[in-house]
């Protein structure tokens, strides 16, 4: 899979880092300026279920392209959402639906995912794809 420019850069930068603490710090740097969903906009409808932390995601179309914003009370989840934004934002929703979330692996962040399959990042990613699917149908 070829990733959008910004994500590709992130992946490469992460590849050189072996210490997971450093990786987190880098994650927060990348995350700091992307598409955060402010806490005022968190509600039951955009809540992702099955996460240990609170996590919310909002998706919409802009000029025929898919965009998401994410918000979470845990910093790492927030960071992963930001990276996900890099992967999906500005793409056609049909592409979003087809993305494999392997970029998290490639960035060496897999250890940061909640281990239970029914939880965490994959739930979030699936939710984003489901919403992209709906937006495709709407189109």
């Amino acid at each position: 899979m070829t990733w959008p420019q910004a994500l590709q850069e992130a992946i490469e930068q992460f590849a050189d880092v072996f210490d997971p603490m450093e990786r987190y710090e880098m994650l927060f740097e990348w995350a700091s300026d992307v598409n955060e969903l402010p806490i005022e906009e968190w509600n039951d409808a955009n809540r992702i279920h099955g996460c240990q932390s609170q996590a919310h995601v909002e998706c919409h179309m802009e000029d025929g392209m898919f965009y998401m914003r994410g918000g979470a009370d845990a910093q790492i989840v927030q960071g992963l959402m930001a990276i996900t934004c890099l992967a999906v934002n500005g793409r056609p929703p049909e592409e979003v639906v087809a993305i494999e979330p392997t970029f998290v692996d490639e960035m060496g962040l897999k250890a940061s995912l909640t281990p239970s399959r029914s939880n965490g990042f994959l739930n979030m990613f699936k939710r984003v794809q489901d919403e992209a699917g709906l937006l495709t149908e709407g189109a």
Partner: protein
Amino acid sequence: MALDMKAIRADFPILSRKVAGGKDLVYLDNAATTQKPQSVIDAMTHYYERSNANVHRAVHTLATEATEQYENARDTLAAWFGTTRDNLIFTSGTTEAINLVAWGWARSNLNAGDAIVITEMEHHADIVPWQLLAEEKGIEIRVVPIDTERDILDMDIFSASLPGSSLVCVVHTSNVLGVANPVADIIAQSHDAGAKVLIDAAQAAPHHRIDFTGMGADFVAISGHKMCGPTGIGCLLATTESIEEMEPFMSGGDMIETVTMEKSTFAKGPQKFEAGTPKIAEAIGFAAAADYLSNFDMDELHGHIRGLAMYTASEIKSVPGITVYGDHSVSEGSGVVSFLHDSVHAEDLARFMDAGGFAMRTGHHCAQPLLNAYGVTSTNRVSFYLYNTMEEAEAFVEHLRYIIGKFG
């Protein structure tokens, strides 16, 4: 392509063991439990030495690895048994799997006046839970007898038992006779009559790929230890519909959604029936067993095993005084040969064989009603598995002849 018996035997460390004062072990008690390949033992050791942690809900590295290995084991086994992870509930074995159906499904879905069909061929694990439930709830138990002339279930009585029944519980392959029942027909007839079907596949799963989806049963019970896996693990395969109809059985941690002192709500799917810290190493070992078996063509394996059983049955039948139980000419079934000698006591015979290095079982095999039907209280039983060789079968027959010649 012939099986490479030397390579297969080298996979099982115990097979190089000596017994009875230096004799080669000839392990012919596989229907009771099979031996474990190195890869299964190693999978568990590796887990304990590298990744041991409690699973689910934790974020540290070991817990992540343990959870992944445990849940991957579920995927591996679900795929091996022709189903999905949402239809596989880990249990401690076939016995617990059947009890789970009795306590978790039947107890909350059947009532006084309902009927359960079981057969005379069942293992105690598929008899006693139903008797206890029937007694408690006033459920009727209908018993399909075995036709001891032809060593098969009386299918006429089976069909006649179905109308008005709600659950049919049948052993796929008898652990005493090695005979396989016509499960496709049994399932089809039962469903036509509106009954659910539980198949006890303890003896079938080691010999055939269980294709749960294709088979169409509502419940299938399996033990790991009889198919190269560790002790203490097995599974219940159940359709999504059936799982949804089940009430919690064992309860506690891991199977809940929320708990307050007033009331609890429960997880969905298999997790609802997996209370407490799971059998983590065991699940990993069980999956390693499926991985091991996946190296083979199961039909070829089964052909090999059946060949040994058929050879043995036909040879010892000709030994004066020996009666063989079960029809070994049919191609289905497992690798079991049950027999008795008319003067050498079954227990003596087993000890004499043991003195020659041959491990075989003697007793009622947890199937007293089946033995009763044949008018006996115990049999000698040899049962073959993939690592047994024709040389072993021949040596068995030879030593048996010697024993009978000497003490018969």
